């Protein structure tokens, strides 16, 4: 890893690049907020950000601490209800959701609820779904941003908080989730992962500078597939890093500086 940026900065910069202008993006707490703000300042000024407490498309004067705070409704187009924005997702108006990481398996199922076996008395209780289950069920494409290691990337999550492809192709539709939705990309500090069309299993699509397939596989608790042609992720640019550090997160809430 190059000394010019830390893993979180890499995550945010790479994450910001997948955000298309004029698309609707439902943004979760933390790294996704920073990545979205960076994209807005660089290449996607008209990305429509949606926050789960009810705000749409603010002109954020600084990084929100919460997806429900007053930065998220600052000069927004509408400051509405959670019900309204969740219903926009259910109606099919939201292209992407951008979720933070937790336990994840080869089908992109996420756990943010608990570690252990006993639901009423878990080894570790985590916050729960928040809006993650809703967003990953109802938005068209789910992007996960998370650091990669084999405690996070596991064979079987202890609890499916948030649906990926469940147990394979067609399982989402069979369960009753809206058609043609599901995991799209996983952005990590080592690589960009996608999903195989046929098996719905996670695959490596782009390696970050200096990272090998072996290194990625070593940090993953299940067997990864590989895209036909692997790309090399361009490293964060000076401009990305400057805007991230100076304008997006000067207090270091997300990137930890």
């Amino acid at each position, binding site marked *: 890893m190059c000394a010019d940026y830390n893993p979180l900065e890499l995550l945010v910069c790479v994450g910001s690049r997948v955000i298309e202008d004029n698309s609707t993006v439902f943004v979760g*707490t*933390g790294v996704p*907020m920073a990545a979205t703000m960076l994209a807005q300042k660089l290449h996607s000024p008209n990305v429509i950000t949606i*926050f*789960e*407490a*009810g*705000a749409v498309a603010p002109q954020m*004067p*600084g990084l929100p*601490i*919460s*997806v*429900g*705070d*007053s930065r*998220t*409704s600052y000069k927004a187009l509408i*400051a*509405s*209800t*959670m*019900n309204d924005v*969740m219903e926009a997702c*259910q109606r099919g108006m939201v292209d992407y959701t951008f979720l933070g990481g937790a336990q994840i398996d080869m089908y992109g*199922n996420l756990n943010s*609820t608990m570690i252990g076996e006993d*639901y*009423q*008395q878990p080894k*570790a*209780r*985590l*916050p*729960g*779904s*928040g*809006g*993650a*289950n*809703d967003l990953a*069920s*109802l938005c068209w494409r789910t992007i996960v941003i998370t650091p990669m290691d084999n405690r996070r990337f596991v064979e*079987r999550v202890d*609890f*499916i*908080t*948030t*649906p990926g492809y*469940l*147990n394979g192709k067609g*399982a*989402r539709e069979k*369960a*009753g*989730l*809206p058609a043609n939705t599901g995991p799209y990309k996983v952005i990590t500090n080592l690589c960009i992962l996608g999903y195989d069309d046929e098996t719905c299993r996670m695959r490596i699509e782009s390696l970050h500078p200096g990272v090998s397939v072996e290194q990625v596989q070593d940090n993953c608790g299940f067997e990864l597939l590989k895209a036909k042609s692997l790309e090399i992720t361009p490293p964060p640019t000076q401009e990305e890093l400057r805007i991230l550090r100076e304008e997006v997160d*000067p*207090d270091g*809430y997300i990137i930890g500086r």
Partner: protein
Amino acid sequence: MYEDIVDLDAGIEELFCDPDPDNARAFFKNKNRGLVNKVTSVEQAVGVHINDGDYIAVGGFGHVRIPTAILMEIVRQKKRNLGMAGHTSIYDSDLLATAGCMDRCDISYVIGYEIRGLSASARRAFQSKDIRKTDWSNGALAWRFAAAAAGLSFIPSRHMLGTDTFKRSAARSITCPFTGKKFAALPALYPDVAIIHVHEADSYGNSLIKDGIMVSDPQLARAAKRVIITCERLISHDEVRANPQATTIPYWCVDAVVEVPYGSHPGNMPGEYWFDEDYFKMYLDTVKTEEGTERFYQEYIYNVKNFEDYIEKIGGVRRMIELRGIEKLIFTNKG
């Protein structure tokens, strides 16, 4: 893999609130519709309207527009066996879980403080069997309130299905009679008491959320059997009538109104003041240990007479003016 989960037709956990709309209607039938003065004190609001065993739900977003004075008074009055909707809850559910007021919780988000990390005290409380749990998503609880506000017993939705969140809920599934498609069926959630902090209210309880997001408060206020409002400012009844489109919560939902300036501290109050990040850091550091937790609750709640004393303790109006400066983009969060 996961076969037992992905095709499940009903959640297996406990339903904490009766979703029967005829039972709710029988309650609402007798709810007072008169335009009467409901202004009271924090002590009275909690003493009169919150009973041991009640199921409560809190407005706002867990650390945004929260009714801190009421929450602390519930702890101070040692209310017990409360149920709670852990809907976008943060500091609110932490206080009630940590202080031992809560014995059951419909969880969609607890313990976490968004980008600040987790609360150790909330984690200890929610890891214990002392709090019976079910899990839902934020959308699920938002729609459960909406179903109750509409006087229904259930509402269909298209999420949760196929996951452990569904399995560990009390949701069921239903087949659409028009398309034959499978939907989740969410049970209506009629809380006994909702507690909501707003910008302005009149003495009858007509309430205005004037800035920021609504979360699910319009639905929650209508769903709850009783509603306690705290407000930054009381306003005259005529001011409400001057702009009826601005009324967020009509008086007939409301049972008690308390004027509590700075009432969302340490939470953000949109348009008024920003988060008190120093306080949150102090809190999250202090509750890492059980002794620290005990110390915090003694010092900030049990040994504090009322919310005015609490505001003095956290730095008084001078501190609130600083937080107002950050909210208004005059200062940055780091001074």
